[in-house]
């Protein structure tokens, strides 16, 4: 603790931070201390060397060129910083919620229609699908193959005629 205090005082003496009275006292004390004198001398050497180095650094300095760089930067139009840049504006669109709902529904319908068309256009495997005809199609001929059958007409629920193609279970010529 005492040592730290003494170090602090020695440094303050070296840096000219003591009062004139404290300084005079310490100066008397230091006369008999070779250790402290050596310390002070080394600090002085470092200070001189640093001053010398600083003088060399600044001797090479091109002041006008440096000022020109500063002037150019100061007079350049200031670009907005990241923070200052205009934030993305969010606009309130009237009826936006409804638009989103209808948009979603339209997308759904479009997807359903696309699936439906794809199913219709899908090539059928031969012989696996029964004959499909839209209502109102005129049947010109029926090929019963190995079976026997009858074509007749009945009245539908709405009073419309419906064609019925009746195929017998038993194949012709079978025992």
């Amino acid at each position: 603790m005492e040592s730290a205090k003494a170090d602090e005082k020695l440094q303050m003496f070296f840096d000219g931070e003591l009062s004139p009275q404290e300084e005079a006292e310490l100066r008397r004390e230091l006369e008999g201390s070779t250790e402290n004198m050596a310390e002070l001398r080394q600090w002085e050497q470092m200070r001189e060397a640093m001053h010398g180095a600083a003088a060399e650094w600044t001797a090479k300095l091109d002041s006008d060129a440096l000022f020109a760089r500063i002037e150019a930067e100061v007079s350049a139009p200031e670009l907005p910083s990241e923070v200052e840049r205009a934030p993305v504006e969010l606009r309130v669109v009237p009826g936006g919620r409804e638009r989103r709902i209808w948009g979603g529904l339209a997308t759904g319908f479009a997807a359903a229609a696309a699936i439906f068309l794809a199913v219709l256009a899908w090539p059928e495997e031969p012989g696996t699908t029964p004959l499909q005809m839209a209502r109102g199609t005129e049947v010109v001929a029926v090929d019963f193959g190995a079976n026997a059958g009858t074509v007749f007409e009945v009245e539908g629920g709405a009073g419309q005629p419906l064609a019925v193609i009746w195929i017998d279970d038993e194949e012709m010529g079978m025992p």
Partner: protein
Amino acid sequence: MNQPLSSSSKSEEATGGSSSKGDHDLVQRVQAGDSAAFRELFDKYHRRAFAVAMGVVKNQDDALDAVQEAFVKVHKNIDKFHGNSSFYTWLYRIVMNVSIDHVRKKSRRKSLDFDERALHEESEVAGDGALVPNLTNANPGKAALRRELGGAIQTALAELPEHHRAVIVLREIEGMSYEEMAEALEVPKGTVMSRLFHARKKMQAALAPYLAGEEASKD
């Protein structure tokens, strides 16, 4: 006891030479848009600001960048300077902060350009008197030792932690008082004193061979 060891080491340039009133007038003129006054402030302080920056960044290009950035900040923020502190402590606070930022950015890139930097440092240390202290000395042997000491000082400074480097540079190169350093670095005066003492001790340890050589050469 030798006179140089007395307590008169505070730089006149840093205190009396700064002329606070003159600075205050110049600052007011800059605030009013007088670009000639800005040039006057630059002329008055840029060399010292550069020396301080060099002590921290240890590379001329980085020091130039730091001083440029510091003066640009001064120009842009001059309206915020109300004269509560002296202009030059405000300026050195900016110079110091900018310089330390440079060092930090550089250290983040350290692993990438290590080889190149090592070569650069080597050439600085082995340079032909670039860092020779300007002490009058006719003894060639002693002059060579001082040259070497100059280079070693730069290396030793680079080894110091930022906060130690800042105080020793402001004290030894700029000659600031403890009070001024406390203001510039925004730390208590006791902290400044403690950091300065430790910085000196580390520098002494790093420079021991050179300092001992100095002693020997005096005999």
